[in-house]
């Protein structure tokens, strides 16, 4: 289960530092008891707005993919980034596979606990599509903006 992190447009292997994890429920019940927590784990059936006030307490937020087909964490990540302005690490955990990596990056994930053995191919997967039609958390320039910027056809 290698850990990869996003650097520029590449995924690179990262050292797995030990984390002091706390779940969102436990944190909300009693923040003082978890003052030393370094990572917040949010299950995918919980609204991220519950933590909006305390986001600055965490450098790492872990979002869950119980199966890769369960896509709730994509929305959670975008909300954390775009609505609540979270700038720390958002890490994908669970059924995290190469073929979803691009979408995860677009939604604001920048760290990945890869399941499966093709983790190192994930970096190539990020480059498989050159453009995006729609804006998302990665700030990729949407196609319509590129169209506006291109020189008028001669």
């Amino acid at each position, binding site marked *: 289960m290698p850990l990869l992190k996003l650097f520029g447009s590449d995924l690179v292997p990262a050292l797995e530092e030990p984390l002091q994890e706390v779940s969102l429920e436990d944190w909300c019940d009693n923040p003082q008891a978890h003052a030393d927590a370094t990572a917040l784990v949010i299950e995918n059936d919980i609204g991220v707005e519950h933590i909006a006030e305390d986001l600055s307490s965490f450098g790492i937020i872990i979002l869950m993919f119980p199966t890769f087909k369960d896509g709730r964490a994509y929305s959670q990540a975008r909300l954390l980034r775009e609505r609540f302005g979270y700038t720390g690490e958002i890490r994908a955990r669970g059924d995290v596979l190469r073929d979803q990596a691009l*979408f995860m990056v677009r939604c604001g994930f920048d760290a990945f606990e890869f399941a*499966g053995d*093709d983790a190192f191919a994930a970096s190539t997967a990020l480059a498989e*599509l*050159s*453009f995006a039609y*729609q804006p998302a958390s990665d700030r990729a320039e949407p*196609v319509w903006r590129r169209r*506006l910027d291109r020189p008028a056809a001669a």
Partner: protein
Amino acid sequence: MYRYDEFDATLVGERVAQFRGQVERRLSGALSEEQFKPLRLMNGLYLQLHAYMLRVAVPYGTLSSRQMRKLAYVARKYDKGYGHFTTRQNIQYNWPALVDVPDILDDLAEVEMHAIQTSGNCIRNVTSDQYAGAAADEVEDPRIWCEVIRQWSTFHPEFTYLPRKFKIAVTASQNDRAAIRLHDIGLRIHKNDAGETGFEVIVGGGLGRTPYIGHTIREFLPKKHLLSYLEAVLRVYNLEGRRDNLYKARIKILVNAGGVEKFTDLVEAEWTAIRKSEIDLPTEEIERIRAYFTPPDFEDLPAESAVLEQKRKGEAAFARWLRVNTVAHKTPGYAIVNISLKPVGGIPGDISDVQMEAVADLAAQYSQDEIRATHEQNLVLPHVKKDDLYVVWQALTVQDLATPNIRLVSDIIACPGLDYCTLANTRSIPIAQRISERFSDLEQQEDIGELKIKISGCINACGHHHVGHIGILGVDKKGEEFYQITLGGSGAEDASLGEIVGRGLSSGDAVGAVEKLVHYYRNNRQDNERFIDTYRRLGADPFKEALYAAA
């Protein structure tokens, strides 16, 4: 029609390359079938009863001649010489080999076609009115907005693993030919009191085992906000939709479980938070897309055609076809031609490569190079000069594409059923074939008038039986095939869900049942009532009686 620019072309090309890699990994064993499944589904590839099935997108049902020729080529080269138009305005090939699929996709990409998001739990190909751009009754061409949605929804990073598939339909007419009340989202372009055009937003319609008619959650959405509003609906659904039960995962369940008001509040709150973001397109981009849908250069023609009138008088068969299969065009001197893919005893929606080539030729010569696929599994030549109708009819007749039965009793929708589908209880196609044989008399069909029969081989309702004037549903009772009749459904602007009448019937009796129902209707209709009108006036009981009376 819309043409790809370098961005669209690059993305489709890259997608094919990506899928080629995924197929290679599957064939080499690097991917298990379980891992491969969602990837192939995102590319329209299903595993059916006997073989793979490839579903190719026909965005909002619009095709050029060149594209139709390519579809014919694919049918010839990689399939058994035919294709099958579906109720989603798409085309399916029932016999491709897995190794060939990347090549097929490459061939399709040459003509700006693809199979992206034609399956899987993502936003599917957007459907529309098959008469868009030609209909006399439309506010504007809805395909402009279909194309806007196509681009926004393509590879949407947040909405590719939704609880379930997601279908959007757009119309710009009072007469709903796109079944917008039966989609996850239906959009109707209309004018408000101030004379501005915008969308009525309808959410939560759908068929399947728990059918619902959609609810209007917004009467009027200014057009420029379309994408941010859709994004708000999709986000609420992605986060809140059920994922614990496949059959409760569609948005219709979410909308109806908590009530429309609660759902609407969630959407409006989400929309308020995102509407100022960059999601909505700037006017320049909308105008760029709109320009592709500029109407063709129609000639200045008299409203009536002398040639046509002369032929109409001379040939009864031609006159009948004109009455039944052609529709008023918005431009004087032109008509919309429906091509029936429902010949007597045929398989609804099936078309051979030779027929596809013929349709492509006719479109090139007589219909501004345009063809449409309809959700009722027929085709349309949208812009034919009245002067040309006779030759077009002759050419269609030679190809067995001129059966004058549009909207009539033999214009049946049938799902693939047990002939292809792994989920089926019963066969659908043979029932459709037998009904159409039983009612092969054209004069009788025309006298019966509009009558929509829809057949599904199981409760998943791909044949839309709930909204058939007469619906037929295949059920399995202790290993035996039975058919359940529903009555009174409609998928149009007067949308309603059919009611089940009585016990299931054997396949032989199901065909006879339709005959009895039709017989009862003909004896009891008033004036120009359609079957559905008579049913609504008299209620279910007399029809039930007619159906089950000692035979």
